[in-house]
């Protein structure tokens, strides 16, 4: 029994990356002889359990940091699309919740530079009795809305059918897939902003936009259900080119100046950013948590390096006696600390990247997280934090070693 357990322990130790690194160091010495690199590597993995735990601590902290930064990006930076620079959203200057008069359409479409314009009203209903539906529904003018679709394509059904049938809708491919829908199926929505419900027939499916989840339906239907109030939520405009966008924004704003419904026009991106700001200061929250993670990471690495060096004071004293200088010892400690931190960063950041890249988060979070992309910039931030901490963690032990005299070092541990 003992033999079997020993064998299992041996096999498990073979699975440890530290065992491989130790073996690599030994091979390095055999091929290239003893040198600073192999000396540092041998020392770094001499206590395999501690080295493994250190690497795992740094790895999990880095993974958490990368995840938080990715989450912050997901929540605060809207995805950019090719056509976003050509689209403008005009809303009521007072607030997004205030509607605009439908009669403004005639003025807006005459503004030079405007190629297309459609009412664009957020319905905010819940699908099939869901408590919170994660995809948005908008009432649009189907004929005009077609001109606003710069990217994306009709992947199923017919847009003309959508235009013809006032009770039909135009649905994103992700939503179709998620709910197992097909052309001709019904989609029922319970209104939350509006005291009306919708019963829509799927006429066409779109795909290839930055967000293939939305559902679009006839504004006329919404008007009819609400007793024709003569209002729209916002105006969605497309301009001739990105160069004229700012001029168009200024003209739209000016056109309704001093009217009963002043307008605030802005680019699609600016509009999305304004919408996000309503979520609260997500950035400060995630950065605060990231700060705590980084601080914990620092405590872990500093504590580990201090322990590792403290239990080697005698050896470092011997090295000093043999003629190694303070800067040599500092280099050894720094390389060891940096190496462990770098390995932890590689495992943690690589692991986070693999996890969030290959996991279907959109499905798992019911569409709350759409892209959750671990960008090179985020990975670089994690790596820089780990590297800086690796260096900082080496400073304390190095100073202690620099201050230690050979005699002290020998006395302490003899």
């Amino acid at each position, binding site marked *: 029994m003992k033999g079997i357990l020993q064998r299992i322990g041996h096999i498990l130790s073979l699975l440890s990356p530290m065992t491989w690194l130790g073996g690599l160091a030994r091979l390095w010495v055999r091929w290239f*002889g003893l040198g600073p690199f192999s000396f540092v590597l041998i020392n770094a993995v001499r206590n395999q359990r501690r080295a493994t735990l250190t690497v795992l601590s740094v790895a999990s902290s880095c993974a958490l940091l990368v995840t938080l930064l990715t989450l912050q990006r997901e929540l605060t930076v809207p995805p950019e699309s090719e056509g976003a620079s050509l689209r403008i959203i005009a809303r009521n200057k007072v607030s997004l919740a205030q509607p605009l008069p439908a009669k403004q359409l005639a003025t807006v479409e005459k503004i030079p530079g405007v190629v297309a314009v459609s009412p664009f009203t957020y319905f905010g209903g819940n699908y099939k009795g869901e408590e919170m539906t994660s995809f948005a529904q908008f009432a649009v003018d189907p004929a005009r809305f077609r001109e606003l679709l710069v990217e994306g394509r009709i992947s199923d059904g017919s847009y003309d059918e959508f235009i013809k049938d006032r009770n039909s809708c135009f649905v994103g491919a992700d939503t179709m897939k998620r709910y197992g829908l097909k052309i001709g199926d019904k989609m029922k929505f319970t209104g939350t902003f509006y005291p009306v419900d919708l019963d829509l027939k799927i006429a066409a499916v779109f795909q290839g936009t930055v967000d293939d989840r939305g559902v679009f339906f006839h504004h006329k239907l919404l008007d009819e259900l609400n007793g024709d109030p003569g209002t729209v939520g916002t105006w969605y405009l497309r301009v001739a080119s990105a160069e004229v966008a700012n001029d168009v924004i200024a003209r739209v704003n000016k056109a309704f100046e001093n009217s009963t419904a002043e307008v605030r026009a802005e680019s699609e991106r600016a509009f999305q950013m304004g919408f996000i700001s309503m979520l609260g200061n997500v950035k400060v929250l995630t950065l605060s948590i990231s700060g705590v993670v980084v601080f914990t990471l620092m405590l872990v690495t500093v504590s580990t390096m201090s322990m590792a060096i403290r239990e080697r004071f005698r050896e470092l004293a011997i090295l000093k006696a043999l003629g190694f200088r303070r800067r040599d010892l500092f280099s050894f400690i720094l390389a060891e600390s940096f190496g462990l931190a770098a390995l932890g960063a590689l495992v943690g950041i690589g692991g986070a990247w693999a996890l969030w890249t290959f996991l279907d988060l959109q499905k798992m979070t019911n569409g709350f997280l759409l892209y959750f992309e671990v960008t090179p910039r985020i990975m670089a931030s994690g790596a820089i934090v780990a590297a800086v901490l690796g260096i900082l963690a080496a400073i304390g032990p190095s100073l202690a070693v620099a201050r230690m005299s*050979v*005699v002290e070092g020998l006395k302490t541990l003899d």
Partner: protein
Amino acid sequence: MADPIVVIRDLSKVYRQGDINVIALNGISLGISAGEFVVLMGPSGSGKSTLLHIIAGIDSATSGEVRVQGINVANLNESQLADWRNQNVGFVFQSFNLIPVLTAHENVELPLLLTALGRKERRQQVEIALGLVGLADRGHHRPDQMSGGQQQRVAIARALVTDPALIVADEPTGNLDARSAQDVLGILQSLSRDAGKTVIMVTHDPKAAVYGTRELHLEKGELARDSVPS
């Protein structure tokens, strides 16, 4: 008598322990010639280890002067002193002080990493040093795979691999059985007698002292007797 390799003049060392000054060495003056095997003896706290450490450049004196091969060790800065120790002094300690994760060969090679020698030359030097202490075939063994006596012989090989003029040994037989102690003392004696190395050894053991060519007896930080071991 040959010119002294170590010249000590009016050497004093005072430690501060709280509010009290403890005199470890008090006005020591002596000269040690090249090739001598000097044994430092005396009761605990007599200052023999302190004297050894100051001669070897790992501790500093409060006053007085130590010259080794004409160099005033106190005038060297940290880097110069490190280089000087690497080139001129070999250390042997009571508890061997080998690096446990390195093999015997690598432990002996360590001081050579600071020299300009190439890998091949380093290997040759290490093999010679291990051969001199009778461990040519144990180079690939780690310290925990060797006996105390063998570990101390590896430590001696490490001490002489850079071909230093001076070998300092602080109670090198303190942790060894009688047989291993004899082997180690025999090697140190041979280094002094046959290789012309100057060996300074601290010991409590009168039997070890007979291997030396000169015995210095310290008491309360002062040189009480300078004699030939009998």
